[in-house]
């Protein structure tokens, strides 16, 4: 398996390697890729995200065999899948619960980057590709939620598509172009189906590939936020690095085992997760003459939805909502500290990051609540805190976070 294997030897392996660089690839990307030896639990979520992606593709392929896009057929074909296809319920729940777990894993993966400054140079492009994956994932999840054509699918799509109507000038025509009709209907469902099963998975796979290639180029960050490449050993490999395979492949298998345990518990015992993963109105067919009393998107969109509703002006609300997502792209340039990891930043930076995490979770909760009374006031306060974080970070990071860092990573042998 190693790069030192004698390639002059005969046999099938030599025949293969002469035509396809299998051993070379293993040596370059896995056994010869040195990752910092001080990874902690936060470093499980990258490989887990890849696992969920593959799982969504596989369950998606099988669901597509039964699903019939269209106003008259979509809802019934999902019910048919759930009730009559052998194990169809399992495929459908794995896919729907998988969408929520995808976002759980991605949010934790992003939180890791915030903790250890993984978006900072030289990993700016790695971060930008990651954020593009996040954007594509949001589009993929939204369209996937519309396809079963339950009543929340319909009204959620109505609200989200109408957001594009707030763009000055082209708005109303753009909305009609997206729907392909004067209202949501067959044309909307069939194009969303095409995008959901072909276009966006393709784009996601490409972006994931770019994310991984960029990662191999710059190397992984670590909880100390120091560059292990600056401290090479006699063999040319970083002193603080260990080969990705077998060390981290084995560590990741432990994460996979734990993850699949949690995932199975939810799929088998609480697939709707109390209305968070699958909302009650979506078990009724779409009804254009009845808006659900309370429209809330699925939990992973609610922080942004809370910001949209917090603003009393329609256009400004939509603009701030778009900005609240887009601002992440600029993190490498907003954070101006010399040190990457929060471990080597001052108390101000630590509090700031803590407040931001709480703010994000509070907005997530508020987006699930009705937009009246105290909830509106709270949503406004936390919207200000949300944007305040990025502004404060821009200034605080200039002076708080330039202290000394160790030469070698912090590591206790087990």
């Amino acid at each position, binding site marked *: 398996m190693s790069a030192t294997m004698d390639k002059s030897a005969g046999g099938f392996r030599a025949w293969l390697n002469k035509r396809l660089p299998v051993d070379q690839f293993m040596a370059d990307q896995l056994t010869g890729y040195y990752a910092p030896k001080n990874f902690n639990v936060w470093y499980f979520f990258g490989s887990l995200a890849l696992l969920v992606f593959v799982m969504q593709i596989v369950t998606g392929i099988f669901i597509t065999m039964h699903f019939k896009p269209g106003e008259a057929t979509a809802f019934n074909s999902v019910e048919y899948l759930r009730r009559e296809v052998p194990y169809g319920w399992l495929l459908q729940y794995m896919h729907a619960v998988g969408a929520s777990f995808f976002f759980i894993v991605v949010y934790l993966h992003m939180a890791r980057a915030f903790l250890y400054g993984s978006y900072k140079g030289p990993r700016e492009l790695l971060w930008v590709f990651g954020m593009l994956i996040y954007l594509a994932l949001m589009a993929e999840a939204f369209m996937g939620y519309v396809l079963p054509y339950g009543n929340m699918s319909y*009204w959620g799509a109505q609200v989200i598509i109408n957001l594009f109507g707030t763009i000055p000038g082209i708005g109303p025509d753009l909305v009609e172009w997206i729907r392909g009709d004067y*209202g949501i209907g067959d044309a909307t469902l069939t194009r969303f189906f095409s995008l959901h099963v072909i276009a966006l998975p393709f784009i996601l796979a490409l972006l994931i590939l770019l994310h991984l290639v960029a990662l191999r180029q710059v190397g992984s960050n670590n909880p100390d936020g120091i560059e292990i490449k600056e401290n090479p050993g006699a063999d040319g490999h970083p002193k603080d690095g260990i080969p990705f395979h077998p060390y981290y492949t084995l560590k990741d298998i432990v994460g996979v085992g734990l993850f699949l345990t949690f995932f199975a518990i939810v799929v088998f015992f609480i697939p709707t997760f109390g209305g968070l993963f699958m909302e009650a109105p979506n078990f009724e067919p779409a009804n254009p*003459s*009845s*808006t659900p009393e309370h429209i809330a998107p699925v939990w992973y969109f609610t922080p942004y939805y809370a910001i949209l509703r917090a603003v009393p002006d*329609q256009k400004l609300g939509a603009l701030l909502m778009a900005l609240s997502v887009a601002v992440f792209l600029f993190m490498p340039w907003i954070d101006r500290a010399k040190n990457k990891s929060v471990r080597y930043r001052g108390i101000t930076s630590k509090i700031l990051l803590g407040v931001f995490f709480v703010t994000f979770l509070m907005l997530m909760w508020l987006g699930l609540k009705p*937009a009246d009374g105290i909830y509106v006031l709270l949503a406004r306060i936390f919207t200000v805190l949300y944007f305040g974080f990025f502004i404060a970070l821009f200034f605080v990071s200039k002076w708080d976070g330039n202290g000394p860092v160790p030469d070698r990573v912090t590591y206790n042998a087990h």
Partner: protein
Amino acid sequence: MSDHAADDTVPEVDESRRKFLIAATAGTGAVGAVLTAVPFVASWNPSESARAAGLPTEVDLSKIEPGQMATFFWRKQQIYVVKRTPEMLASLSAHDPQLKDPTSEKSEQPQYAKNDSRALKPDVLVLIGTCTHLGCLPKTRFTPGDASVMANWPGGFFCPCHGSKFDLAGRVFQGSPASVNLKIPPYSFEGDNKLVIGVDATSKGVA
């Protein structure tokens, strides 16, 4: 047989000619790519049958009691038709300062509905029942004084999604996330009791 020796002498490269040819080739290719994209992008517009399904909707007004609302579909949109009572009409003039757009300057409606009652005939209100905020269906809250909507409520519509409030002419109240009044579709009357949604004097049958 060709002369290989002649091939070995490299002619001097005309850099400006090369640059021009590269730019011209790339430019032509880019124009072709953009033009090729046009049919793909255009295929997302409403199809011919979707357009044809936007035919006018006819409503028998004699079946709606004064003070009540009936709903119909036109172009996949819910249309609200309200028979307004004299009391309802009288309530319209009392709250202009509380409205975002009392004279409907910024709102969408046919010219003949841009008046105090926002209607061709004051007693028949025709609205597109789509909240101008983000497209939910506003609910009827016709009882004046309903404090669950707001203090001194004159009667009107309340959107449950994001809390926009409209009066009995579909005009939006201040403090609502919606910024313009509910839209009014083109419509006309044939006789006393037949309302035609989607056709008016200016459209001449073209919806």
